[in-house]
């Protein structure tokens, strides 16, 4: 499938893996694709920059939106994360709860949402009214695919940055845009 990707789109995929590794994630999540797109120099990155989304802003928004140990969400089901953390640290030492599973050996797998984002990128390109031979998946298509999946964390990050999926879709254009 990657043979249909432009070089810049492939670079987005590589950058997404870098982001996932930097953030010590288990898998490459849709939000890592978003962060990668903020570093893209092609159409995908252009659209994000046009609405004020940049790499630093993206990272900062993610840190504030998406701590996987979501204290508020846990509190909603009656779990006090502070207490759990204190108990874990008492038994296993400082930072116990921050330890992840096995160290990454290099290759990180794609989460299902990320795989679907790339499939949606292909679907987006196939809908465009361009000649068959020009239907390469560029970084704009990757962004379109990402938005099509509607990952909650991606949407939270975009909202925190003051933009929304709909206006991004309009800027990208395509068969389904107005």
């Amino acid at each position, binding site marked *: 499938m990657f043979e249909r990707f432009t070089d810049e789109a492939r670079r987005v995929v590589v950058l997404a893996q870098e982001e996932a590794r930097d953030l010590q994630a288990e898998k490459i999540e849709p939000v890592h694709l978003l962060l990668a797109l903020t570093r893209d120099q092609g159409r995908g990155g252009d659209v994000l920059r046009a609405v004020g989304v940049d790499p630093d802003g993206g990272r900062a928004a993610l840190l504030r939106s998406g701590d996987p140990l979501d204290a508020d*969400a846990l509190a909603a089901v009656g779990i006090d994360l502070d207490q759990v953390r204190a108990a*874990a640290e008492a038994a296993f030492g400082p930072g116990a709860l921050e330890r992840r599973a096995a160290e990454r050996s290099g290759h990180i797998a794609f989460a299902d949402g990320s795989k679907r984002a790339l499939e949606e990128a292909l679907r987006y390109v196939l809908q465009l009214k361009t000649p068959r031979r020009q239907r390469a998946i560029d970084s704009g298509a990757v962004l379109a695919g990402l938005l099509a999946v509607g990952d909650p964390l991606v949407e939270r990050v975009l909202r925190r940055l003051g933009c929304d999926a709909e206006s991004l879709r309009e800027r990208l254009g395509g068969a389904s845009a107005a």
Partner: protein
Amino acid sequence: MASPTDVTTAAAADDPDTGLRAIRALRELADRLEVLQVTAARDRGWSWQQIADALGVSKQAVHKKHATSRRDR
């Protein structure tokens, strides 16, 4: 920060948005705790099979998830 006594637990039952977000956070918390407990069990000489039995999963699953970073496979 919210505390369990302040926040209504109605969210857990009525609102899928918050409820599913809570499930996701619980899974993440469970994963972190699993790393700590499996490591502790191995340090005490538990076999992968014993750990798998305690977790209610297959030995292969535990091995795949936890053995890759340890020398004592």
